[in-house]
């Protein structure tokens, strides 16, 4: 078993209670989180193999195709998974989900009036490669309204879930798009107190990776908690 993970900077993440995002008011714990050192359970995590993953799972333009590709602005979403020490995180499972180009989710609980796209499911997954790189082909999602303060609008976003190599690195977040004026107005974006942290969630237009007469590209790197070296660890954890 390798070293401990660097502690999570809770001031960098959104706090639990963010009253301008109203649902948080009844769902945020009132008590402080209890801090403890990590044991083997927090320093290990599930490994997902290629076996379960279909070759089309990272192509959302094609993976729900019922006769035509998905409608919308075609994009490549790509980047690297690193840890806070700058080391690549290889072979880790990344899952994404998103609304279609009109801002509608294919979900039994989404009743937004915008249309479903019969050729878009909005569900993708992939494993990072040996150098921590990943990519998805998809369409740029549309913004959508939600109740919150009357009718707020979500900035266009793709939800992302990632495992890392251990339970302590587990993370779910959202990816936004450079230049979207709704980012500044979005109550969920603004649960994050630090502008530099918000900046980490904005995918950058990447003209170097666009494919001529096919699609644009956006670059989004992911950083997971870093792992300390093991100089002073005792060896009782089943090394």
């Amino acid at each position, binding site marked *: 078993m390798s070293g401990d993970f*660097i502690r*999570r*900077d809770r001031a*960098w*993440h*959104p706090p*639990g209670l963010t009253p301008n995002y109203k649902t*948080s*008011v*009844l*769902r*945020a*714990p009132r*008590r402080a989180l*209890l*801090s*403890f*050192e990590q*044991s*083997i*359970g*927090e320093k*290990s995590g*599930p490994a997902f193999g290629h076996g379960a993953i279909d070759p089309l799972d990272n192509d959302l333009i094609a993976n729900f195709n019922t006769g035509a590709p998905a409608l919308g602005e075609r994009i490549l979403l790509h980047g690297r998974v*690193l*840890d*806070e*020490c700058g080391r690549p995180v290889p072979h880790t499972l990344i899952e994404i*989900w*998103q609304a279609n180009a009109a801002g509608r*989710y*294919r*979900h039994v*609980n*989404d009743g937004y009036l915008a249309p479903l796209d019969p050729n878009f*499911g*909005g*569900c*993708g997954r992939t494993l990072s490669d040996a150098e921590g790189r990943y990519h998805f082909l998809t369409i740029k999602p549309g913004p959508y309204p939600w109740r919150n303060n009357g009718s707020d609008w979500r900035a266009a976003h793709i*939800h992302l*879930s990632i495992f890392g190599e251990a*339970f*302590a690195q587990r993370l*779910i*977040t*959202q990816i936004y798009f450079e230049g979207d004026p709704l980012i500044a107005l979005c109550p*969920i*974006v603004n649960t994050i107190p630090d502008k530099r*942290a*918000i900046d*980490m*969630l904005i995918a950058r237009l990447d003209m170097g990776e666009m494919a001529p007469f096919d699609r644009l590209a956006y670059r989004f790197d*992911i*950083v*997971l*908690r*870093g792992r300390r070296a093991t100089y002073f660890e005792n060896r*009782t*954890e*089943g090394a």
Partner: protein
Amino acid sequence: MPVDYLKETPSQTAGPYVHIGTLPAAAGLPLRTQENLHVLAQGAAAGERIRLEGVIHDGAGAPVKDAMLEIWQADASGRYNAPGFSGWGRTAADFKTGEWFFETVKPGPTPWRDGRLQAPHVSLLIFARGINIHLHTRAYFSDETAANEADPVLRAIEQRNRVPTLIAQRSTRGGQTVYRFDVWLQHDERETVFFDM
């Protein structure tokens, strides 16, 4: 100047449509309908078969019906990533009732940092709309009184009246062993202990 590190990507809520990407069949998509990620006890996995179940309550006492939960645990002999038993599970709260459950095996004790044993427990993560960064808790077992009293994590909880929020209650239903683990996100007395580990 101190040494520079990269900063962790900040969390955002999983939102109400988390199921599309994590449990697409639950969202109503005709995808991965054969996946049973809430069933960890497959085939010949050794150990006592148990059902771990509960409801997550919000600060008004209402069930949280759009949560996604993940568990991570050792096998019956206390090993993580053991061959034949993944130890990882995922499920959705029921959209109508908020009830969730896993079918798994009761884990064995696992080592703490200094070689002492931790009482058997299942680590649990909660993701949902309104939860900006996932919540991490542990379910211990009500029939492990002696092990729970010696557990380094439970022992370190200063407010002793909060320890029971981490104990799943054992019962038998239809011949099956059931552990009930209700979670209270916000409560004057019963608020579940959540960890920063």
